[in-house]
């Protein structure tokens, strides 16, 4: 069975990827062809640019250079959806039936009976009101997003008519010549015509956090990899460049990804599925019971009008009118609570989705890591030293006494172009803004912490010459005046790729002394280099040389081109490695995920080794779990000989991925518990998410870049990063992590799980009294007794007394450690299951009805109507012309007197239900534990709920004017206690139920009574 499943999908998916690749190749040739051809193709001029007229013409043809925003559902349709969703349709039917009943009565000449007209209006009002409420809630959560849409119009410097012009970026057209400098956002897809040490940040597109250098060379046939293209919406970090616009708006690569994202349908959230399922059950019940009794009533000889009124009553009694509003409020409350914990929920239903999540596909950069390079290790004096990589980094505790360290520290401080942005003296070092690339920033902050004021130190040791780092020479060199008054020699410092630095050295400094660099020493250094590299760290080598005073006096003119200074036989000082370290809260959070049964899969655009190192240090790869490669290494066999099933962990390289079919991916997901995907593309992310979903998992995806947006949308819950995240990612996501911290997701999961449990309790609470509302109607029809409870009364329970109590259950604390159980299985652990329904309806509900009936019979009997008299009395009772109906004691009653009597019954039944609902609310605090264990007073809001319930009931009973408007009568005080025995019974019975569930887990009782 599974095989057919799996085989069908790959067939669909694979050709599409191929197709996409092919299209890329055939469509996007602009990076391959020569600039001459390009100029011809786009009819432009490299020096003069386009003419304004031509540009206007192209603009008219291609449209403005903006991304088409995703299609918005019209507000009216959204509103209408709310009006017919859920129970609304059923209630509309009820309202229409009311009006039909009224029309029939009117037709029969009974002009005064307006009850049905009003009831219809009330029902319609309920639908419209709850609809408006839901619409408002939805609109409010979308409004949070509106702020993200407001973007400052981007400017672009363009050459047109031979002049440099500043225009807004949306006016750019294909063929325009654009000038880019450091700090600019690239305004369209550009083919670079010239570039001066230009570096771009493509992370929003490819997920790669490293700055990419840009040049005019065509280096790769894949447009995403080649160096001569600058992509729309990426940022130029340094240098300058000139480029020709080759595509604009939706035709850009980013536009294509955005289109991909808008093509992905938003999956229905698990809670939406659950609510739909529940609405289905209740609607099915209402309709079937309604129809059965409609037919029954007709066959029993009731008139059509009466039968219709029965049908209305049954529908109103069956539908928990207030429940959907309650759910919305509960979710909103949780959303607010989550927002305080830095999880901003865009889509209310997503609140619960996080709780159901069984797989988290996490981005590496920024979420798991701190998104900044930090010094991780140092190597000098033949020794490894570990640096503190935590967020604060206040103290560096490694041994700093050696002379070698002093030399190394001096190089780190001097051989750097990075500087703190001015005016930040009061800001903690780690939080200061730095002008310079990521590595230099790390070094600057590192030396500032260990060394003191670096800028001052640099002033004392004036830089007189410098060769900046380039990708060709792979080192950086500078020459400084020395601040030591006894040593006026100039100091040459150099840092760069370790192999390049080692080449330039002939000595090495050990404990402050220079010794010749022997082969075995080189080997030691090499192995340290490899060790750091193996940890996924970027390694830099450092060396220096004091230039002899006689040869290099103070005013010596250094020249970079002739290299009139030593660049060999320098003195090797040490190595230093950098890493983007994991956030300190992450390992703990991942551990929590693991105990909560949530699988964390890392999807990274980075190199496999870096990705694996982070996986190890964050605990995504647990201690002792091995990859196939690790096993192969340990057993000293080749990778092919290892049984793949033995390896718990796996690192999958995205570039191998394209050859893998999804069947293989399914296999990987099934056979490895701990997986890291490295070097993945946006499409691959999407495929991975789909693969996880195929396994039946509820998948959460975190991401920040535009490249993540398709996956974010495909995910059951997309989580965008609030600080570094792009607007596209935030738009596609369901939730925004305001602090970019993975640990916040875990608190989100906890809240989500809690709300699922609590919604279950709220639903169980609400459904119970529906039985107590339904039973009176059924008995009324079958036994022909006076109506025990009115339709309006039912509405006042559903929308009056019961609302606050059911919301208060959202504040209930967890019954057990919810973070130590597996995530719920969406196909088995339903929000509303058969056990919940049967326990609520058939057990507690029936008990409640009986309590209600006791109230009803007591009130009637006390006034002279014994049960024996009222059974079968209905027709006489409801006959308006019969004004001397005899009761059990021989007294005679007018119609109106009987009506008041009936309203007293409504009130009594209502009070009975309210009293029993108090017990029902208390028992719903827990599903398994004893109430006494949970604490009766723990949930303050629940007590407010209980009080409000009694308060509203008192108001309805005793406020003046209630008798004729809502048919409530002032009930004698003792009737409030008639149902109390049944309330106590409900409490005791539920305690017994829970006791046996705890005592005999897995028993028949447990299986049938636990909901």
């Amino acid at each position: 069975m599974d095989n057919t499943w799996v085989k069908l999908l790959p067939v669909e998916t694979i050709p599409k990827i191929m197709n996409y690749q092919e299209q890329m190749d055939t469509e996007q040739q602009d990076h391959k062809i020569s600039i001459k051809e390009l100029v011809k193709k786009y009819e432009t001029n490299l020096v003069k640019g386009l003419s304004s007229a031509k540009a206007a013409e192209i603009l008219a043809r291609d449209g403005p250079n903006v991304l088409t925003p995703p299609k918005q559902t019209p507000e009216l349709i959204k509103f209408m959806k709310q009006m017919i969703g859920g129970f609304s349709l059923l209630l509309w039917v009820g309202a229409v039936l009311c009006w039909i009943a009224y029309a029939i009565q009117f037709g029969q000449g009974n002009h005064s009976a307006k009850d049905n007209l009003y009831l219809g209006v009330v029902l319609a009002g309920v639908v419209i009101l709850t609809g408006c409420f839901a619409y408002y809630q939805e609109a409010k959560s979308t409004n949070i997003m509106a702020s993200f849409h407001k973007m400052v119009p981007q400017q672009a410097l363009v050459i047109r008519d031979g002049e440099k012009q500043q225009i807004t970026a949306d006016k750019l057209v294909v063929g325009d010549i654009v000038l880019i400098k450091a700090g600019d956002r690239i305004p369209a897809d550009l083919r670079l015509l010239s570039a001066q040490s230009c570096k771009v940040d493509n992370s929003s597109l490819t997920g790669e956090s490293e700055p990419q250098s840009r040049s005019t060379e065509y280096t790769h046939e894949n447009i995403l990899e080649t160096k001569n293209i600058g992509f729309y919406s990426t940022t130029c970090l340094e240098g300058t460049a000139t480029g020709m616009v080759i595509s604009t708006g939706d035709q850009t690569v980013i536009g294509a990804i955005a289109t991909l994202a808008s093509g992905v349908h938003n999956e229905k959230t698990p809670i939406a599925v659950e609510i739909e399922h529940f609405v289905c059950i209740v609607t099915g019940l209402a309709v079937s019971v309604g129809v059965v009794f409609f037919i029954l009533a007709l066959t029993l000889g009731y008139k059509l009008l009466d039968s219709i009124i029965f049908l209305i009553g049954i529908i109103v009694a069956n539908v928990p009118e207030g429940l959907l509003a309650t759910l919305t409020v509960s979710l909103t409350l949780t959303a607010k609570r989550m927002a305080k914990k830095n999880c901003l929920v865009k889509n209310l239903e997503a609140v619960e989705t996080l709780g159901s999540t069984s797989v988290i596909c996490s981005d590496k950069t920024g979420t798991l890591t701190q998104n900044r390079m930090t010094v991780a290790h140092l190597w000098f004096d033949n020794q490894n030293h570990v640096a503190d990589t935590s967020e604060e980094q206040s103290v560096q505790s490694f041994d700093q006494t050696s002379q070698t360290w002093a030399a190394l520290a001096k190089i780190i401080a001097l051989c750097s172009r990075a500087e703190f942005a001015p005016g930040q003296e009061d800001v903690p070092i780690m939080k200061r803004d730095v002008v310079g690339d990521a590595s230099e920033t790390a070094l600057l902050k590192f030396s500032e912490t260990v060394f003191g004021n670096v800028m001052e130190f640099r002033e004392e040791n004036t830089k007189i010459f410098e060769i900046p780092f380039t990708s060709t020479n792979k080192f950086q060199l500078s020459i400084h005046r020395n601040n030591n008054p006894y040593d006026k020699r100039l100091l040459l410092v150099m840092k760069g790729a370790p192999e390049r630095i080692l080449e330039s050295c002939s000595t090495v400094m050990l404990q402050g002394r220079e010794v010749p660099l022997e082969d075995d020493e080189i080997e030691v250094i090499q192995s340290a280099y490899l060790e750091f590299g193996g940890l996924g760290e970027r390694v830099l080598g450092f060396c220096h040389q004091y230039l002899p005073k006689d040869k290099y006096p103070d005013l010596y003119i250094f020249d970079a081109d002739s290299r009139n200074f030593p660049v060999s036989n320098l003195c090797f000082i040490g190595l230093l490695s950098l890493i983007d370290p994991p956030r300190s809260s992450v390992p703990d959070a991942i551990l929590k995920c693991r105990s909560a049964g949530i699988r964390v899969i890392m999807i990274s655009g980075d190199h496999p080794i870096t990705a694996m190192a982070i996986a190890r240090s964050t605990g995504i790869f647990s201690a002792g779990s091995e990859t196939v490669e690790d096993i192969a290494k340990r057993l000293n066999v080749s990778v092919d000989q290892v049984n793949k099933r033995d390896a718990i962990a796996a690192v999958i390289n995205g570039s191998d991925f394209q050859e893998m079919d999804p069947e293989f991916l399914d296999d990987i997901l099934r056979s490895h518990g701990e997986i890291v995907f490295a070097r993945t593309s946006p499409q691959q992310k999407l495929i991975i998410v789909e693969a996880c979903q195929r396994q039946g998992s509820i998948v959460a995806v975190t991401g920040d870049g535009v490249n993540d947006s398709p996956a974010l949308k495909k995910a059951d819950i997309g989580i965008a990063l609030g600080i570094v995240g792009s607007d596209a990612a935030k738009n596609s996501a369901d939730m925004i992590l305001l602090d970019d911290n993975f640990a916040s997701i875990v608190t989100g999961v906890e809240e989500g799980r809690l709300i699922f449990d609590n919604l279950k309790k709220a639903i169980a609470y609400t459904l119970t009294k529906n039985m107590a509302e339904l039973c009176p109607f059924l008995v009324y029809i079958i036994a022909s007794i006076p109506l025990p409870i009115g339709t309006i009364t039912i509405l006042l329970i559903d929308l009056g007394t019961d609302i606050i109590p059911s919301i208060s259950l959202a504040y209930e604390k967890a019954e057990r450690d919810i973070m130590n159980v597996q995530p719920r299985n969406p196909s088995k652990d339903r929000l509303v299951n058969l056990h919940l329904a049967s326990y609520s309806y058939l057990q507690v509900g029936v008990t409640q009805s009986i309590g209600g009936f006791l109230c009803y019979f007591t009130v009637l009997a006390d006034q002279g109507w014994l049960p024996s008299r009222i059974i079968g009395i209905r027709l006489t009772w409801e006959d308006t012309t019969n004004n001397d109906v005899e009761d059990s004691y021989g007294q005679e009653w007018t119609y109106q007197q009987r009506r008041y009597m009936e309203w007293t019954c409504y009130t009594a039944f209502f009070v009975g239900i309210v009293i029993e609902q108090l017990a029902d609310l208390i028992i719903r605090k827990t599903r398994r534990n004893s109430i006494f264990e949970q604490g009766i007073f723990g949930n303050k809001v629940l007590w407010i709920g209980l009080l409000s319930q009694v308060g509203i009931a008192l108001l309805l009973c005793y406020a003046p004017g209630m008798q004729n408007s809502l048919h409530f009568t002032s009930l004698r005080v003792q009737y409030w206690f008639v149902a109390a025995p049944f309330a106590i019974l409900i409490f005791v019975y539920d305690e017994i139920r829970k006791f046996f569930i705890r005592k005999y887990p897995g028993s028949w009782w447990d299986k049938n009574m636990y909901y």
Partner: protein
Amino acid sequence: QQQREEAEHRQPQQHPDISLTHHAKHNIKAPLTGFALHTMADKDDKKDLAEGAGGWKKFIFNPGTGQFMGRTASSWALIFLFYLVFYGFLAGLFSFTMWVMLQMLDDYTPKYRDRVSSPGLMIRPKVGSPLEIVFNKSDAKSYEKYVTALDGFLKPYDDLIQARKNILCHPGDYLRQPTNILIKKACQFNRTMLGDCSGANNSSFGYNEGTPCVLVKMNRIIGFEAGAGNNPIINCASKKEPQVDVKYFGSFDKMYYPYYGKKAHVNYSQPLVAVKLMLGTNETNRDLMIECKITGTNLKNDDDRDRFLGRVSFRVHITE
């Protein structure tokens, strides 16, 4: 076989893909559309449907496990037994609480009488539409039902029966009786007291002459002393001009009150007032709305909602 079923069910999900390829051709410029297609296929819904249909049959009866509606026979028996015991217990508890409640009631008077604080009025005959008297005075058949009804209603008031069962009382005095005597005495209300409407002189109660008799009765309320000291007075009139002539027989004398309930006051004879509508030829073939009102200190007759409290309206239509 199961596998094939499964595969068949999944067939439909490929259709959306096929239809969407057209879309791809239109949009060939966007390099990624080819991929977007796949995700756009909304296959999940169809899958659910297909599985739903198969699963439904299986749910009704699963031959593999012998489960019927998700439970085996023994499981059904067990759950049935559980509910039997549970509902048995509930029924027992309900019966017990009802019994306790009924024990607290008095056999002779209801606990509360506040819902019937003031009596309503009603008329006899009550046949067909109870508040309408429609007949042809020259057609005996058309008023026969009224005559029979009145005759039947007045049977217990026959003088002989009254004399045998009830006592003679002093008019103008309430017949208050001590509580320790359980069976209460009742005053005689003789049929002959109704004079022209007793049926003695005219066996058809004036219906043949177009001057029909209507009996007005006041609802019984236990312990209620009508008039609170004065005899209640009844007055009937047409709601619209011109007025009709009315003759009254009998009275709601104080001696008939208070009423002690049907268990204590077995032979109680409810007092009546007969209203003879002296209708002439002017009033034939015309709708008459007659309203009777009772006046007395503790008698309400102008309640907004209860149109029968201390008053009663009925329609009379006589044809010739």
